[in-house]
C-alpha cells in the first residue's frame, strides 16, 4: 500500500512539474498573461496528450502480456502501430489536409483499427482467439507494414519526410486541444473494458482450462481484452506516433512494486505509463530547446537502464532462480 501511495504522489508531482517546465520555466507563484497563454495553449494540451498516450500504452501492455502469456509482448507487437504508421506516413507525405489538424491522427487510427481487425481475423480459430496465432499474425503483419513504410520513406524526397520520421519515433509537438476528446473517449472505453475484465485476465494467465473452471469463458474474455488493447493502442498511436518502452516495461516495473493482480496492475500501469511519458516529453522538449527530441527516444534512454537494473535485482520474467 505504501508503494502504491508513493507512485501516486510521484506521478502527480511529475505531471504538475511538466506543465511548468519547458524551454521557459514558469513559476507557479507568478503567472503572468503570457505564461498563462503558454500553459493553456501549448503546455496543457501536450501534457494531457502525453498522459493519455502513456496511460493507454502502459495499460494495454499490461493486458497484452497477460492475454498472450508473454512477458515480452508490448502493444506494438501486434503490428497495430506499424499499420498505423504506414497509413499516417502516407497521409503526411501526400500532404493530405482533408481533416485539418486531425488528418494524421485519423489516418493513424484507421490504419491501427484495420490492422487490429486483420490480426484478430488471422488469430481466430476454433471459436476463439489463440494467443500464439495472434502473436505470430501481429509480428508478420508488423514486418510487412514496416517494410512497406521503410520503402516509401527511402524513396521519398518530400519535405514531409522529416516530420514522418519524427512521427514514427513519437512526436507530441502537434498536440492540440482538438485531439484530446477523441483520444480520451477511446482510451476510456478501452481502459474501462480492461478494468472490468481484470479478473478474467488474471484467470487467463493460469491457462484456459483453469479460467474455465473458475467460471470464465476464456474465448470471450480474451476477445474483449483484445478489443480493449486495440482501442487503447490505436488511440495512443494516433495521438503522437510510436513511443517505445512504455508498453513493454512499465507493466514489469509495476509488477515489482505492486504485484501482478490485474485489478492493481492495469490502473497502476496506466498511471505510471502516463507519468513516464509526461516526464520523457518534458525532458525531450527542454534539454535541447528549441530543438526537440522524440519522446520515444527519451523513454528508452531513461527506462532501459532502470529496467536492466531491476532485471539484475529481481525475478522479472517469472523464471526459476
Amino acid at each position, binding site marked *: 500500500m505504501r508503494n502504491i501511495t508513493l507512485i501516486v504522489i510521484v506521478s502527480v508531482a511529475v505531471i504538475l512539474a511538466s506543465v511548468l517546465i519547458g524551454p521557459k520555466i514558469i513559476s507557479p507563484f507568478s503567472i503572468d498573461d503570457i505564461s498563462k497563454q503558454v500553459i493553456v495553449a501549448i503546455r496543457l494540451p501536450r501534457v494531457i496528450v502525453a498522459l493519455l498516450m502513456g496511460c493507454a500504452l502502459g495499460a494495454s501492455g499490461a493486458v497484452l502480456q497477460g492475454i498472450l*502469456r508473454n*512477458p515480452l509482448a508490448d502493444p506494438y507487437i501486434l503490428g497495430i502501430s506499424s499499420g498505423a504508421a504506414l497509413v499516417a506516413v502516407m497521409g503526411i507525405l501526400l500532404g493530405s489536409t482533408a481533416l485539418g489538424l486531425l488528418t494524421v491522427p485519423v489516418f493513424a487510427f484507421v490504419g491501427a483499427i484495420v490492422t487490429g481487425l486483420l490480426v484478430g481475423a488471422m488469430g481466430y480459430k476454433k471459436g476463439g482467439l489463440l494467443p500464439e496465432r495472434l502473436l505470430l499474425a501481429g509480428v508478420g503483419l508488423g514486418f510487412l507494414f514496416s517494410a512497406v513504410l521503410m520503402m516509401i520513406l527511402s524513396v521519398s524526397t518530400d519535405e514531409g519526410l522529416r516530420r514522418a520520421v519524427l512521427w514514427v519515433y513519437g512526436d507530441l509537438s502537434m498536440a492540440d486541444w482538438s485531439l484530446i476528446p477523441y483520444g480520451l473517449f477511446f482510451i476510456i472505453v478501452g481502459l474501462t473494458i480492461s478494468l472490468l475484465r481484470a*479478473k478474467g485476465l*488474471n*484467470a487467463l*494467465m*493460469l*491457462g*484456459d*482450462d*483453469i479460467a*474455465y*473452471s*473458475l*467460471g*470464465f*469463458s476464456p474465448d470471450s474474455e480474451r476477445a474483449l481484452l483484445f478489443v480493449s488493447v486495440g482501442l487503447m493502442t490505436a488511440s495512443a498511436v494516433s495521438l503522437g506516433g510510436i513511443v517505445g518502452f512504455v508498453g513493454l516495461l512499465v507493466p514489469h516495473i509495476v*509488477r515489482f512494486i505492486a*504485484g*501482478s*493482480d490485474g485489478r492493481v496492475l492495469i490502473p497502476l500501469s496506466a498511471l505510471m505509463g502516463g507519468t513516464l511519458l509526461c516526464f520523457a516529453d518534458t525532458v525531450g522538449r527542454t534539454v535541447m530547446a528549441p530543438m526537440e527530441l522524440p519522446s520515444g527516444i527519451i523513454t528508452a534512454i531513461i527506462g532501459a537502464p532502470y529496467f536492466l537494473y531491476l532485471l539484475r535485482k529481481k*525475478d522479472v*520474467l*517469472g*523464471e*526459476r*532462480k
Partner: protein
Amino acid sequence: MKEPGGILKVSDISFSYGNGKAVNDLNMSVEGGTFTAVIGANGSGKSTILKLAAGILKPASGSIELWGQPLESYKGRDRAKLISYLPQLLDINVPFKVRELINMGLYPYDIRPEMTTELAMSMVGLDGKSESVISELSGGERRRVFIAMTLLQGAGILLLDEPLANLDIQFQIEFIKLLEELRSKRSISVVMALHDINMAFHFDKLIVIRNGEVIASGDPRSTITSEMILEAFGVKVKIYHQDDGTISFGY
C-alpha cells in the same frame, strides 16, 4: 453399461480430437460424497474424460447433467460454484504471489464463502508462503498452491487430473486425508485421474479406461485383478492381498 443417476451424470458421450475417437460412448455417474478414481495407461483418455465432465471439451454426442440440468445450461459462475477442475500440467511461470493465486478461487463469488485464504493455505501446508512468488516455489509446492485455490473455490464436485503428481508421499497421503475430511464435513465428491494404482484403494469406486472406453468399474478391491491390469496397461503383474485389505504388486 448404464449407470444410475448421480449429481453428475455423463451419458453415452463420444468425443474425438480429429484423429480417431478419443472417448467412445462413455457413461459415468458421480454420487454425492463419493470418491471415484479413473485409471488407465498414458493416452487412454483419462484427461479427456475429466475435461469433458468439466465442460471444457464439448462432446460430439451424448449428454452431461449436473444436478439434473444440462451442464451447458449453467452460467459460468454458477457452474464454478458446483464443479471445479484442476488440470494435470501446471508448469506455468505465472508472476503471481501465492496469496494472489489462491484468492482467484473466490472469483465465482460476490460474497466470501466460509473458507478463507489462510485456511486453504494451512490445509495444504503453505503457511508462511503467502507472499512468495509462484515461480520461486518447487513443483510440489506449486501444485499445492493450485490445490488450495481449488479448495477455496469450494465446489462440491472436484475433477482432479493427477493432482498427486510431483507431491511427496507424505503430501499424497495428507491430501487424500484432507479430501476425506472435507467429505465428512461437506459431502464433497471427487473424480481423480490416478497414475499410482496403489492410491486407488482410498477410493469408493474405480473406473478403468482403455482407448476411451470403460473396460471395468466398481469397488477397487474387486476391480483390480491381474487380468484387468493386463487388459488396461498391457503388463503382467502378480497381485498379493495384504491383511489390511490393500494389495501389493509383484512385477
